[in-house]
């Protein structure tokens, strides 16, 4: 750039270049995305025709996540865990990860407590849903909103 470029000209050029770069990188790294509809479908696959009620299951996730690559979480459900009345499974779903399924955990009465802790990836600020399947065939769900600053799945290998 020549010595006599005015401040305005410089800013215009630099701004234009930055915008162009930004646009290009958005297009280049646009990852596959599940949609809320895809999540509903994934939930439907697990639940079938049964009605999903609100409550009974608890999902603990930090509300603000700095690094989406490893997000600690605990999912649990209140249950006496007897042979007649226990939690059969806990399922996790996300709205905007490339794929809506996260994990399914299956228990029996011998688990003693229906509670699992693990670490997951979050590709974006989104809603995470936990669904609990009881031995009587009913389903219960809860959802948590998470704000993610650094998304997972974007970095190059």
């Amino acid at each position, binding site marked *: 750039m020549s010595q006599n470029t005015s401040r305005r000209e410089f800013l215009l050029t630099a701004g234009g270049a930055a915008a162009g770069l930004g646009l290009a990188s958005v297009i280049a790294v646009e990852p596959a995305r599940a949609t809320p509809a895809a999540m509903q479908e994934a939930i439907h696959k697990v639940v079938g025709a049964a009605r999903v009620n609100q409550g009974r299951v608890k999902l603990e996730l930090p509300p603000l996540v700095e690094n989406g690559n490893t997000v600690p979480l605990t999912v649990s459900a209140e249950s006496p865990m007897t042979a007649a009345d226990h939690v059969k499974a806990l399922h996790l779903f996300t709205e905007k990860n*490339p794929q809506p399924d996260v994990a399914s955990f299956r228990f029996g009465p*011998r688990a003693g407590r229906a509670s699992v802790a693990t670490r997951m990836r979050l590709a974006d600020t989104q809603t995470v849903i936990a669904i609990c399947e009881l031995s009587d065939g009913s389903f219960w769900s809860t959802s948590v909103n998470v704000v993610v600053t650094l998304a997972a799945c974007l970095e190059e290998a």
Partner: protein
Amino acid sequence: MANALINVPPRAKRGEIIEIKTLISHPMETGYRRTQLGAAVPRDIIRAFVCTYNGTEIFRAELHPAIAANPFIAFSTVATESGTLAFQWTGDRGFSETASAAITVD
């Protein structure tokens, strides 16, 4: 390559609910990433985890790419009898890893 870490209390009272923590080293490659040259990195994840207590299955997990690298899973069980807790992870590319821990119940 793979390396599993298990945390099970060595002793427990009969009927007590014990917590089991497991950690295994694994990249959990999602299959959605690309190299700098644009080539897709193939998926390589652990798909299933099973825990058996003296041969009886007590816990099972089905994992998807949304589980973070080096999967950590903590769950609980009722200490019913002395014996062995066996753990098995299976995944893509024929991945299979086992571990076990002994527990004394009084």
